[in-house]
């Protein structure tokens, strides 16, 4: 299973880092293009075994040979970044790990459904890691701290008026099917010596 938005976000954001639009053709709308990128990327990534390398050479769709798909596979999730040659391949693998660990902290034992139901929150977290296609922050503690401050602000703003809505949504969430939690972050078969944090 792959999260369309998630996958899209990375590939799209990064391939447009430089403001170029190598992969956008005139007769396709941005949304069609985005879906096509996701479909093809998923197709490419999902048929790869676990014991092959985590890099895929760029096709024409993602902007040419300067671009690479770098992905990590966690249980049912693929996190795919599309980067150009100015990024370090192993560095990006690390960054994905940082991102996933951050998700784990922010959602307290993240699971697949957390990401599906809270797409907006995932984006807010991602925006603290990657901004406009450029790596913004690589220190997990710093990212988590910033995200938490913003969440607190949101809560305090909600105040009383949001309370009923929260209650309703809590009731609604009770019906969520029992789902296996935890996407096993520790259990990854890629070993990359971690970069030292800031």
């Amino acid at each position: 299973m792959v999260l369309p938005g998630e996958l899209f976000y990375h590939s799209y954001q990064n391939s447009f880092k430089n403001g170029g639009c190598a992969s956008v053709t005139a007769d396709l709308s941005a949304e069609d293009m985005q879906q096509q990128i996701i479909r093809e990327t998923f197709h490419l990534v999902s048929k790869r075994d676990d014991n092959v390398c985590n890099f895929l050479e760029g096709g024409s769709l993602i902007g040419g040979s300067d671009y690479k798909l770098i992905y990590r596979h966690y249980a049912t999730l693929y996190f795919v970044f599309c980067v150009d040659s100015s990024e370090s391949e192993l560095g990006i693998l690390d960054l994905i790990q940082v991102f996933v660990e951050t998700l784990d902290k922010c959602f307290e034992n993240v699971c697949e459904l957390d990401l599906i139901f809270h797409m907006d929150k995932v984006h807010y977290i991602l925006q603290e890691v990657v901004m406009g296609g450029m790596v913004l922050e690589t220190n997990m503690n710093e990212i988590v701290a910033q995200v938490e401050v913003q969440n607190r602000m949101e809560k305090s703003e909600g105040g009383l008026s949001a309370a009923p809505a929260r209650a309703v949504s809590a009731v609604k969430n009770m019906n969520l099917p029992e789902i296996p939690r935890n996407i096993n972050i520790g259990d990854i078969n890629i070993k990359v010596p971690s970069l030292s944090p800031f």
Partner: protein
Amino acid sequence: MALKIVKGSIDRMFDKNLQDLVRGIRNHKEDEAKYISTCIDEIKQELKQDNIAVKANAVCKLTYLQMLGYDVSWAAFNIVEVMSSSKFTYKRIGYLAASQCFHENTDVIMLTTNQIRKDLSSPNQYDTGVALTGLSCFVTPDLARDLANDIMTLMSHTKPYIRKKAVLIMYKVFLKYPESLRPAFPRLKEKLEDPDPGVQSAAVNVICELARRNPKNYLSLAPLFFKLMTSSTNNWVLIKIIKLFGALTPLEPRLGKKLIEPLTNLIHSTSAMSLLYECVNTVIAGQYSCSVGHIKSHLLCVQKLRILIEDSDQNLKYLGLLAMSKILKTHPKSVQSHKDLILQCLDDKDESIRLRALDLLYGMVSKKNLMEIVKKLMIHVDKAEGTTYRDELLTKIIDICSQSNYQYITNFEWYISILVELTRLEGTRHGHLIASQMLDVAIRVKAIRVFAVAQMATLLDNAHLLTGNMQRNGICEVLYAAAWICGEFSEHLENPVQTLEAMLRPKVATLPGHIQAVYVQNAAKLFATILKNQEGNTDSTAAQETSQMMIDRLPLFVQSANLEVQERASCILQLVKYIQKLQQKDVEVAEEVSALFAGELNPVAPKAQKKVPVPEGLDLDAWINEPPSESESEDEQPKAIFTKEEPKHSRPRHTEVDEKELARRREARKQEQANNPFYIKASPSSQKVYQEAPGVEHIPVVQIDLSVPLKVPGLPMSDQYVKLEEERRQKERAEKKKKEKKKRKEKRSGRGKKHDSGPESEEDITPAHVVDIVTEEMPEVAQEDQNRLPSPYLCRVKVCICMFCLCRPLADSEKLPVRSHRAAGAPKSSAEDGEAENATPQEPKKKSSKEKRDKKKDKERDRKVRLRCWKHFPPSGHKSDSRSTQSEGRTVVTFLVFPLPRKVCDIQGNLQDGSQVVVSVIFENKSDSFLKSMEFNVLDSLNSKLQRPEGSGPHDGLTVPFQLPPGVSNEARFVFTVQSIVMPQKLKGTLTFIVKNEDSSTHEKLDFKLHFTCTSYLITTPCYSDAFAKLLESGDLKSSSVRLEGVNMPFHHLLARICFHHHFSVVERIDSCASMYSRSIQGHHVCLLVKTSGQTVSIDAKCDEPTLLGNVLDEIKQTFSQC
């Protein structure tokens, strides 16, 4: 009122929120589209509410739908509403939606400018942060221009969180609004030393991205980065800096040397693989430019890479191979020693790794191991499942074998049989590739023809095997080659009658038209040969039988739907009928028939045409018919290969269109050649053009499962050649040894080419067959291509580089002409052109022995010194491209001149200090001799003086502080003092140097001219329209005007041209009227008002210095008269 709010929030409780929407979509898997369309209707209702909370919720859902691929651009205005909410919660939702949905063409973006500005200056740092994040995704040129100042202020915000984001977003702003780079750069530089590591990292990140586009401008930052590299402990920052150095070292050889030590230290000390890998990469890049190889660091790199490749982690293996391929370009030897490892990688289960390994193989082959490597690959071809990988293997095999004119093939019989074996691949798309190789080899290697013809005859005989599921696979292209070879070299056929019979089988009619045509034509050739053979015999019936067979079979082709086949068949049929008549009268016809195909076809180099002198009075550039409309030729960008092959033009180009048209014609000719078997192709790739049947992959191909590899009876297996070759070599080696003893002494005293690898050196393996090599002269332009101008888009971001004029050296005794690559250059007669061709650098690698002798003779002539001067002006973003190569006597010189003011590194250069100009000159040694003791001298004028060190006389030259080994370039800077900038200046100068050869050294002198135009003193300075209006009102400015007639270009091109060549910036543009502004280094304002009507352009100009203005206008006029 209170009641209303409560009611609103109660309503809201029952609205769907994002979670409900997601749940709903998951529960409606079958009718998802329908469910979503009802949701969108609900959202539309919600968006009509006044309550901002409801709106925000709706926008949040829309964002999700957008990610699923639904178009939500209709809600753009609502998104802006939510963005402008005062609450952080909603603002964040709004900005997220905007970053997902907005793009350059979203018109509501215009409305956001003020809102974003307000958010940027908000006291709450998270409001600012959210605005910055959003802006980074949808920044447009307008937004960038309007907000650049605000963002710049944020770069010094008290909170590191904001500083970090502001620094990072500046990169996007630079891209959209390049003019902001200059004012923002000092602050960006400051941020490199920010106390907060996050901000520092962001600044490094931005500068690395900028430097990737235009490394030259950031060379001056190298010391700062060097300091950072040695002090920083943050691996992310280190990686970025090391990557940056990787981009800089090719430009500055000294940097590479300096870096080696700290990098090797890092390699030894770091535990992070990512850092180690980048270090290795940069060391490799450094060696690329270093003429002196650092053996130690190099060995270390290769050794580390080997460890990476041997690692069980596939990622490291992949990266190791990737880096190896970079080493291969410079040090193929050291990669070759790891052949075992790389061949092993071919067996890897990961396709990414296999493809990387294949790339490496290309550079690793030698005469010695070619057969072995290809044998391995052939095994892989048999094993490979999936046609794409197999096709990749096939092209690689052919690439490897045919590289540099079949340099590594020692036995062509082996190669032919490899090709024949490859024809047995089911469903490959590369039949034409194999075919062109067969043709190429058969035509050029005379000795192989007998063998090739025999093989081809067998192929024709077994054509049914190839055409099993005909038409669908490209392999039947091979028959095209087979038929042609059998026909053309039919005298070598053992059993021509049988081949003729095979060529005229009814099944042939199912082949594609172009192949049938070749069949028919070559059947006629065969027929001629057969007649000739048979007429010697006394029995005339055999000959008559052959004629009868032709007459019986040809009507099949006469009925062909293909015009070409039909035409040829009916001609030949009539001819044969006539021959038959003559035969019946017992007339000897064979001689006459074979005269039809008399004459041997010789290989012709693709560029042979150039050797043919153009007849007098023939102007190849003149239009025969009126030129087609401009728009058409504009779209057609000449392909890269054609720009390299810029023709050697002696006449100046009239217009740009001319050049494009020429390229187009050349392309057409190329195309024609590619389809013409009588031309030797420059490379097999030119053939690809006409193959490519659409949709081949979609047709299901039935795979025939054969446990035994398909073998065509009578075809040799290539393997046996490997054995034969071994034997042959051993024999040769034995013979050699005898001779060697005698020769050894001579060898040592001779040329010092030593090969220390292996018991048997490359040179010792003599090819079994000699290839007719048609060497291609490389036009000089091909080498200059490295310096080719970047695309205009990239240029706009450039800051420092601005080349303004071209100076040709003063050559009193111009024996050889100027070859103008681009626009400029003096007209020359074509007679001189011929001589120039001799002076072009020859490709040194593969030369027949005869040419080698020639080369020795020409050694003197080949010597070239290349001199280029740059003058920089930091703020303008472009380069002009006038350039010329001049060969004066025996020396070719290229001059490019750029001015740069005193402080090139400090971009905010002090305009008052505009009396000093730095000219940086790049000296490039294109000869193969060593150059030393260079002295640079300029004859001072009253106005401009070369600054000399204290104590030296006014006519002393300046010593260039380096020596130039062959092929090396380096840069030196010279400072000039300029009194007045209102007049253009020309300075004459000389460069003296000593040319050192192996046995002699001579003193040489080179004259040149530096041209300081007035335009070059202008700096592109943005100006706002209100400031511009004030300036004009002030009344201090003198005015002048100029009219240009017959300017035939769109207005925006015209403006771009003025901006580009004369460093102006557009202040305002209304329809066909625009105001432009620029400023001189001494602070003169120059304002232009450009109007156009039809082909007339009028420029009204104002400036506080009338002389300067007059000169600038003259220069503008000149720019347009040239085009």
